């Protein structure tokens, strides 16, 4: 995909230029993390890739027509008038019969299946949004800061689940995160964007298989990254 320019009209006055000359493509089955400072345009990039925002110059080549796409938005975006289980089921494609029992169990949602979203804590709601994305068994998965508002233990479980899904099905994953540590632990490629308007400032491949990333190795990597991109990364 290639975005030449993306501007927003502002209500009060003027336009702001958000993205300029941002081009990258995702290999099928790759796990990419998109990293950039708050407000630089990460969510906007995802929205353009999802086809939710067509008011830009450039071109997005979507994956094959019948590829299943799932997205985890920055907010849970659940239907408040449907229970947790209904929210997940509604997103399922026809004839899909995923093993929801196990999924809810893993996400710690088993006892909440018949709760309404307003009865959930934010962390629980986020997990429901994750469950919805995982349940449809997607070919492409776009995640916008999926693991915030979760305690470390839960977040770890979620990450493991994500990796399992990715490895098992060869899902193409693009994940936005502010947590460089998390990115380095999970992804096999980092995309750094920054600037005003934002453009690609770094494209870092991480070829080492995830299971071999030891804490020591990651510490060095983080250190190196921090030195190469002092503006964008700080941890």
């Amino acid at each position, binding site marked *: 995909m290639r975005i030449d320019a993306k501007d927003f009209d502002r209500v009060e006055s003027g336009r702001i230029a958000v993205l300029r000359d941002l081009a990258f493509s995702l290999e099928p089955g790759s796990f990419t993390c998109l990293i950039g400072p708050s407000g630089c345009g990460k969510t906007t990039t995802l*929205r353009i890739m*999802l*086809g*939710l925002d067509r008011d830009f110059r450039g071109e997005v080549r979507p994956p094959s027509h019948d590829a299943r*796409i*799932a*997205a985890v*938005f920055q*907010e849970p*975006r659940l*239907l*408040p*008038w*449907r229970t947790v289980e*209904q929210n997940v089921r*509604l*997103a399922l*494609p026809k004839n899909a019969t995923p093993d929801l029992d196990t999924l809810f169990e893993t996400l*710690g*949602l*088993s*006892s*909440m299946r018949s709760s*309404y*979203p*307003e*009865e959930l804590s934010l962390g629980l709601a986020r997990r429901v949004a994750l469950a*919805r994305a995982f349940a*449809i068994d997607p070919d492409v998965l776009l995640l916008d800061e999926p693991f915030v508002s979760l*305690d470390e233990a*839960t977040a770890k479980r979620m990450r493991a689940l994500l990796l399992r899904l990715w490895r098992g099905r060869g899902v193409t994953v693009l994940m936005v995160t502010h947590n460089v540590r998390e990115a380095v632990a999970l992804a096999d490629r980092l995309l750094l964007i920054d600037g005003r308007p934002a453009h690609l400032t770094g494209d870092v491949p991480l070829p080492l298989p995830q299971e071999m990333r030891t804490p020591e190795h990651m510490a060095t990597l983080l250190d190196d990254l921090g030195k190469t991109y002092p503006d964008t990364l700080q941890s």
Partner: protein
Amino acid sequence: MDPDVVAETAEAEETRRTSRRYRRVPTSLLSLALFFLTWTVAAWWAHDPDVPTPFAVAAFMAREAANGDLFYHLSITLARVAAAFVVSMAVGTAIGLAMGQWREIDRWLDPWLILLINMPALVLIVLCYIWIGLSEAAAITAVALNKTPNVVITLREGARALDPKLAEMARVYRFSRLALVRDVMLPQLQPYIAAASRSGLALIWKIVLVVELLGRSNGVGFQIHLYFQLFDVTAILGYAFAFVAVMIAIEYMLVQPLETRLTRWRAKPA
């Protein structure tokens, strides 16, 4: 980390829900009783044939019910109200949603809408009778034409206030058209539909009265007008209350239980 659900016997649970559901009725009944009490006292105090007591009105209703007139006219009026209601809600909702979601449609239809909504009921009714004929179809068209713009206006506001975030979510997950309407849009429109249909039913009934007055030979409106010519306040109130009673029954036995079901997801106020 999920807090356990505290076990409760199914029985205790059942009692609690039941008692909660039936608690509303007494207040409403009490409130109605208060109304009739006020009326009775006022009537006694006024002591004027134009201010009949509730008992006089009830006696009249009983008499009309006994000779069958009440049910005859009431059922005819109710049929007209129902037909016009269904037509105008369906048409009005469709147009209102379209206008609320697409600017261009809104711009084109808006002037017509203002024209139509501000046409006096009398004019629309008379024109319908002249052009379509003195028939049931003309009567119902006339009523629907009067009511539809109100539905359009309310639903248009509803459509404008729809949350784009949820629509985006539905789009990403490729919700079917049915699911989009049933699970995403309708629940958001529920308050608007509720408002439109409540005040709609009442408005339709008022217009049906005029329609019946101008060109039908039966129905509650016809009767009320007949008695108006005789200035028989008791009879007028009798027929008016017969209809109101039906409306109250519908409200408490149909609409409110339904509404409670539909809105129970809303967090209860602390």
